[in-house]
């Protein structure tokens, strides 16, 4: 028993209570990691399975027992996937949609949030409550009239119904940016005002540069949102030349559901830009989510 008892640097052996305490702490750490690793692996498995299947030749796809590490690698799946569907066209459409939707969201929401956060005027609080209230209105309520409206003005099968509304603000982003802008010290505005800056000058030269973290958060959220968006393109884009990756990939699945090698290769190519993006913007990502959650 004495051998198991660890000695301290000064030669004193630990008492039973001390030993128990350290053992319990060690055990807790080990258990914590064991649970986290188990769940962590489970959480990553779908992605691993996606990549693994994307590298398998078709004969190995339908093979039992299942293997996570492919027996033979077939990188041509990736080339074949880009030929099986007009992959580059879809990729371009998704990129186009994402770029312009994000530009719209960043410009409009920064602008609008400034009016709610930094300028005092009568009616501001009432309007802001209305902004918040619109968050409760489900997309499904607006979907049908907007579809009919856009159909009547000939915007169907174009990106306009998806992009143009972004230039007019979004309740959630206005809320997020306002919360951030409210924390900026008022003294800055006052000092600028004394120096003769106009309201526009204060917005452009003080509020915008200082709000970079919030602007970045909105950009990140919007990039993810549009890249993932399924229901928007599903409703408005009915012509194959306009399909985004979301719509194109699902269409390919409904037509050739058994081509798992190619489907998973295409899914991987759809996912990987987001993963790369995440690793560049990780910190802002996490901070952004924290920012939104705290001010609930």
């Amino acid at each position, binding site marked *: 028993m004495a051998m198991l008892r660890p000695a301290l640097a000064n030669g004193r052996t630990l008492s039973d209570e001390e030993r128990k305490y350290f053992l319990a702490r060690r055990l*807790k750490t080990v258990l914590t990691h064991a*649970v*986290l690793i188990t*769940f*962590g692996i489970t*959480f990553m*498995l*779908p*992605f691993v399975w996606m990549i693994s*299947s994307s590298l398998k030749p078709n004969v190995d796809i*339908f093979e*039992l027992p*299942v293997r996570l590490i492919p027996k033979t690698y077939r990188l041509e799946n990736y080339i074949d996937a880009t030929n099986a569907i007009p992959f580059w066209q879809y990729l371009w459409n998704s990129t186009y949609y994402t770029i312009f939707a994000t530009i719209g969201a960043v410009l*409009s929401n920064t602008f609008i949030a*400034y*009016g*709610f956060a930094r*300028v*005092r005027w009568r009616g*501001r609080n009432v309007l802001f409550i209305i*902004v918040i209230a*619109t*968050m*409760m*209105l*489900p997309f*499904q*309520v*607006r979907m*049908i*009239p*907007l579809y*009919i*409206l856009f159909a*009547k003005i000939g915007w169907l099968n174009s990106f306009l119904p998806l992009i143009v*509304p972004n230039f*007019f603000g979004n309740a959630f982003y206005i809320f997020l940016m306002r919360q951030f802008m409210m924390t900026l010290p008022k003294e800055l505005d006052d000092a600028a*005002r004394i120096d003769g800056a106009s*309201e526009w000058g204060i917005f452009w030269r003080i509020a915008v540069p200082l709000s970079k973290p919030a602007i970045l958060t909105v950009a990140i959220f919007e990039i*993810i949102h549009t890249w993932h968006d*399924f*229901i928007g393109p599903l*409703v408005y884009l009915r012509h194959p030349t306009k399909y985004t990756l*979301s719509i194109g*990939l*699902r269409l390919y*699945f409904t037509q050739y559901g058994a081509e*798992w090698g190619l489907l*998973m290769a295409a*899914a991987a190519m759809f*996912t990987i830009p*987001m993963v790369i993006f*995440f690793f560049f913007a990780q910190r802002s990502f*996490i901070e952004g*989510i*924290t920012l*939104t*959650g*705290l001010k*609930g």
Partner: protein
Amino acid sequence: MFKLKRDPANQPNSWRTDNLPAWGLFFVTPWIIGFLAFTVYPFFASLYFSFTNFNIINFTPRWVGLDNYVELFTADPLFWISIGNSIKYAALLLLFATVFDIFIAYLLSLNVKFLSIYRTVFFFPVLVPVVAASLTWIWILNPRFGLINGLLDLIGVKGPNWLASPNTAMLSIILIAVWGSGRQVIVYLSGFNDIPRSLYEAADIDGASGFQKFRKITLPLLSPQIFFNVVTLIIFSLQSFSEVYIMTQGGPANSTLLYAVNLYNRAFRDFAMGYASALAWIMFLLILALTLIIFKFLSGKVIYER
């Protein structure tokens, strides 16, 4: 006093209050335009459409009074099925996701090594585009060659049919949604990190048990995050559409026919725009009522000041 109060120069932080409305409105104008065009107009149009039937060919509405609502409540079994499914989906997802995400966030808050790696792993599903994730899950849950039943096969267990069976399809889509709830882990984690360690140390000195500490310290101080996550999760899960539309289209045997899927089918598969507008309004009223109830019962229990 009265005069002093009216004079903006004598109030802290109220510079030039009176001549700024023009600037305030200037900045907010884009929102007002968007609000009128993309919220107010569709809001009332949708209400009007819900009392009409649509001619599919030229999209002209014809007034039918309460017909849509009467049909919906008395003659449409899919309405009741989809309401039941959505409530079941939202309730179970809320339960599983809240318990699981708080648990994971708690473990992450214990000063673990490799925190940023773990955090990335649990957040990762959020990065996978809905369509890519849904297709991957269809393949993982393939009854014969999918990953899960393939692994079960190795230990001699015959797995269920998952998405292809009415008994397991709903559970499958709920668990997949829990997999995708990493945003909540991040929010809870930030909540845990804000709780001062000293409170637990004081409780330890007073001899509080683990459960007492959870009940009296963790839960109240985590309440803003719980409140935020619960409200957003309920609103979002009742509107849930994409994953389920891609994976099961509401099947098998309508077992995963969520409200939003049924609504979409009515509007864009059957082009029953008037009827679908009535469905949308019922959904809106349901969400409104639920949100008000939550605010009434939960917001009083939320502790913001520390």
